[in-house]
């Protein structure tokens, strides 16, 4: 590695370490450049960084940032993990697993943020409404909503929307996961486009103040409308279906927010806080599901070297056929299901 590259890497780590994490609104001291038609310029590739949990560890209370000690420990852990990721399990007597090897991952750089959720102040999801609890328990005749695979594979409907390669939904598409956390903002006169790598979303957001589509039109990614408040882009999205979960991969694993209703309204705020920094906060309002709104914060860094590549999920989804046919094979052999 050249001295210049090493210096850059050190500088980047220092920048990440110094980034403020706060529940309050971003500092307004930075004025971003403008597009040729006069809009604040938010363009670039802003990849997500895995490693900030959705919900805050209860022991951390209302702390939004790790201490120097805690952060140093996290950086060390991340470094060890990255080294482990780079090695495949290759010894002849290595126990081989059914899950994927860890070198499949792109974890990004650790940050001090203690949780993605910054409101409520304890960094944890507000309680579900009784209606939502009941709905989740009783859906599909008591089977519950498809989330993490729990053994049933009667049809594709037993697998979640992401396994089916349909979409990861509006929030899900930006919540960082094990890889492919590519986010890109493009701007044209009167429009902003938000692209996500997984699963090739391109959300075209008009800025001309037109009304939303009528209530009979429902979409997985909803219907977005944007406007500027100073240098902050505010995007309001409605017209969601009720067929998807909030969360990166569909519901089921601990801490996942789970399914939303069709009353969901999402308000996103994008503010550039520095040449390479984007403060991206998302407020979730769904009175049918959670008793109060909640907000997540993603602090993103520009990386125009990150290549967003095509993620044609459905077209290559061998797994769906294999999972279903595998279940049928097992049934035919009368083996008990695991």
């Amino acid at each position: 590695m050249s001295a210049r590259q090493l210096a850059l890497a050190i500088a980047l780590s220092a920048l990440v370490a110094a980034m403020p994490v706060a529940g309050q609104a971003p500092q307004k001291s930075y004025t971003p450049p403008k597009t040729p038609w006069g809009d604040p310029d938010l363009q670039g590739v802003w990849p997500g960084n895995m490693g900030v949990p959705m919900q805050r560890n209860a022991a951390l209370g209302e702390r939004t940032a790790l201490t120097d000690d805690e952060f140093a420990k996290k950086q060390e852990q991340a470094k060890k993990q990255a080294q482990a990721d780079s090695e495949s399990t290759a010894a002849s007597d290595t126990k081989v697993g059914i899950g994927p090897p860890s070198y499949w991952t792109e974890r990004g750089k650790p940050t001090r943020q203690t949780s993605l959720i910054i409101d409520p102040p304890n960094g944890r999801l507000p309680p579900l409404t009784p209606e939502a609890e009941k709905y989740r328990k009783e859906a599909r005749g008591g089977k519950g909503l498809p989330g993490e695979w729990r053994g049933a594979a009667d049809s594709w409907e037993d697998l979640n929307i992401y396994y089916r390669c349909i979409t990861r939904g509006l929030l899900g598409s930006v919540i960082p996961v094990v890889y492919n956390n590519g986010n890109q903002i493009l701007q044209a006169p009167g429009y902003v486009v938000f692209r996500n790598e997984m699963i090739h979303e391109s959300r075209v957001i008009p800025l001309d103040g037109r009304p939303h589509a009528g209530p009979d039109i429902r979409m997985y990614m909803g219907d977005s409308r944007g406007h500027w408040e100073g240098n902050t882009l505010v995007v309001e999205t409605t017209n969601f279906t009720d067929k998807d979960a909030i969360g990166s991969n569909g519901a089921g694993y601990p801490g996942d927010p789970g399914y939303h209703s069709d009353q969901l309204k999402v308000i996103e705020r994008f503010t550039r806080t520095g040449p390479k920094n984007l403060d991206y906060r998302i407020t979730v309002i769904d009175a049918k599901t959670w008793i109060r709104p909640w907000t997540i914060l993603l602090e993103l860094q520009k990386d125009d070297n990150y290549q967003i590549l095509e993620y044609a999920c459905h077209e290559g989804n061998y797994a769906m056929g294999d999972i279903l046919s595998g279940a049928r094979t097992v049934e035919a052999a009368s083996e008990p299901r695991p």
Partner: protein
Amino acid sequence: MPDGHPNLNGIWQAVNSANWNLQDHPAYAGPMWELGAIAAVPAGKSVVEGNDIPYKPEAAAKKQENFKNRHTEDPEAKCYMPGIPRANYMPYPFQIVQTAKDILFVYEYANSNRLVNMGKPIEDASDTWMGTNNGHWEGETLVIDVTGLNGLAWFDRAGNFASEKVHIVERFTRTSPDHLTYQATIEDPSVFTRPWTISMPLYRRVEKDAQLLEFKCTEFAEELLYGKYKKTGNGDRK
């Protein structure tokens, strides 16, 4: 646009029968009598210059086979991304988002999209459904050089196709405030004996508040793709 180039921003759509069949064709029956006239194909005039698609003999045979099996083998039925050039003449709108630098095409069908790189050309790293797209201006015409396609998409519902070695050069020219002329020259020596060209107008969607809606069609193709693996099989469809 502020840089002096033509402004191609907007929502556009083809209005012709190219997606059914690129060449001259009479009206003919569709593959499913159960849908009656809805599944039938209207007559259409060729968008292929000279009406001839110059297949090599073995490729011509493959095209016939595609046509015979189109109701299950057409990637459109499976909700697979349509590739280039077909994405541009599907019966769904698409939006050109022309930034100050690169140009994004967002297609309503199957949520497909492609970012056309207007800077220094990049090489295709792998084969994809929507290709590696390098663009530049020639006067008033946007020229896009497309490589890195995977050869799995079709060019229409009649089974016309090329391989992953195909090289396509597209030309978009604005001929009036609400019209584009679209041309694509297709070259693939492993399938065709010479390059051939398609050409058609594209029309702006001029209604107030025109926008793309969502056609994430995977869920409409699951029965077709996986129905035979369902627990109760395709027999008792509701």
